[in-house]
């Protein structure tokens, strides 16, 4: 039960939804699948006076254009992405990451755009405060950062937990953002601010309309791993996604993209490790060294009871395994 009332209306097109959000004077939010927003409204993190529902907007089918780019309507449900043969062949990294999100019931409702726009998480933010705490944290307008009491008021070290964002980042995806000024297409790297208080660079009344994923060449490899404690219906402890291209010898790395999620205020690219990987002959020994370098490069926030050394160890081991799996898959192909 949500303990406050709000208005609700359904938009019939994305353009209408954006227009309505600018017209309505009270605090208004888009409602896509609602699997993040509704629980947040229940515990009081979000208190909109008005919701503009996006569920009735006709979803465009996923398409691959002449150059091989996959275009996905951001309102597409994750279950549809996970089971789509088109996505599995054109953007396997996206399908693999959608498969790991939450549980089946959540994936049936949750949308791709909603997954990217999800609220950050912290043990002290995403729960009812009448349960345990008297005062809310900075992000809820309070006067303390419970896990990091020495934080300044403008610093929030909550963690951005999207499982799909690192995968899209590693794939080099782009997003089309629809605002009052019309659609703007940009790299997904520009979507994340790295600020826990406002993790996305989207302005009020802007929505992610499409996600575009570039083609995977025949020389390309991909790897993905989401570390969890239980293995299902869980937010990630750390999420690792990577792609790299192999030279004609099927062993040397032409270039690489590695993105780590669920350990910082946004997904992060490991540029040093990527640079070190370039031109390197990939084998068990070199991948072990690269994973060690990656775990030293990443600077995880301790979150949900996991310490920084533990998260670094986790990334060192599972990133290596993801890279080995990626290499094996590419060499067999």
């Amino acid at each position, binding site marked *: 039960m949500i303990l406050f009332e709000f208005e609700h209306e359904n938009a019939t097109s994305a353009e209408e939804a954006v227009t309505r959000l600018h017209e309505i004077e009270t605090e208004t939010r888009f409602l896509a699948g609602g699997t993040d927003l509704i629980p947040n409204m229940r515990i009081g993190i979000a208190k909109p006076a008005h919701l503009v529902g996006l569920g009735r907007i006709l979803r465009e089918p996923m398409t691959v254009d002449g150059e091989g780019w996959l275009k996905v309507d951001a309102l597409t449900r994750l*279950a549809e992405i996970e089971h789509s043969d088109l996505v599995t062949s054109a953007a396997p990294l996206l399908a693999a990451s959608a498969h790991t999100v939450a549980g089946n*019931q959540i994936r049936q409702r949750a949308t791709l755009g909603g997954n990217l726009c999800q609220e950050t998480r912290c043990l002290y933010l995403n729960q009812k405060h009448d349960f345990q705490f008297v005062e809310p944290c900075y992000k809820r307008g309070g006067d303390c950062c419970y896990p990091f009491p020495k934080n300044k008021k403008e610093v929030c070290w909550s963690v951005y937990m999207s499982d799909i964002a690192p995968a899209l980042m590693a794939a080099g995806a782009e997003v089309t953002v629809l605002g009052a000024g019309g659609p703007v297409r940009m790299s997904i790297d520009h979507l994340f601010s790295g600020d826990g208080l406002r993790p996305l660079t989207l302005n009020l009344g802007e929505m992610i309309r499409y996600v575009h994923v570039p083609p995977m060449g025949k020389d390309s490899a991909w790897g993905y791993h989401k570390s969890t404690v239980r293995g299902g*219906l869980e937010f990630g402890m750390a999420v690792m996604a990577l792609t790299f291209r192999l030279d004609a010898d099927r062993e040397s790395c032409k270039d690489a993209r590695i993105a780590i999620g669920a350990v910082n205020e946004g997904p992060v690219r490991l540029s040093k490790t990527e640079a070190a990987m370039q031109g390197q002959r990939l084998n068990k020994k070199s991948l072990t060294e690269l994973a060690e370098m990656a775990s030293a490069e990443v600077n995880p926030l301790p979150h949900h009871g996991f310490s920084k050394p533990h998260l670094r160890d986790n990334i060192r081991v599972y990133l290596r395994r993801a890279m080995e799996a990626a290499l094996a898959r590419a060499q067999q192909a």
Partner: protein
Amino acid sequence: MLDSPEKTTSSVLRARPKPRLVTLSINGEPHEVVVRPHIMLLEVIRDHVGLTGTKDGCESGTCGACTVLLDGKPVLACITLAVECDGMNVQTIEGLSEGGQLSDLQEAFLDQAATQCGFCTPGVIMSSKALLDSNPKPTVPEIKKALEGNLCRCTGYNSIVDAILQYSGQGVKPLMRKDGAP
């Protein structure tokens, strides 16, 4: 208290949203309910329509006890607004039995002792039904993946997996005799 007094006052002064008519087909029967937008599908099913088989567990989309089929897809009724479901078909656990006779899937759960306290069972069975509708002979990993959103604190899950294997005819024999004696 989370809310400051000022915030509380302003939310009280805000005009109340008007109730609206929501038409649902629940287990094949048409229902018209008048609800305000903050009412969840779960509240409509349990409190307005009176079908209390669907359980109210965590209310935050975590436990799966409130799983119903919305247009054939398993969803969590506790985090789905009723106004978002206008014109849709809902199937609850009550929709599986006919004339007081349990469905074969429900019988398979009894045969395998896959229900103990029974609170998670309606949700688990609805998730299982959604799986079996699209995949009549699921493998064990497929069953586990489909049920990852349903928490059970009693059975340890093995008997639930066995019940689905028995129902789908994959070589698992009933654990219990039909007369109820073990």
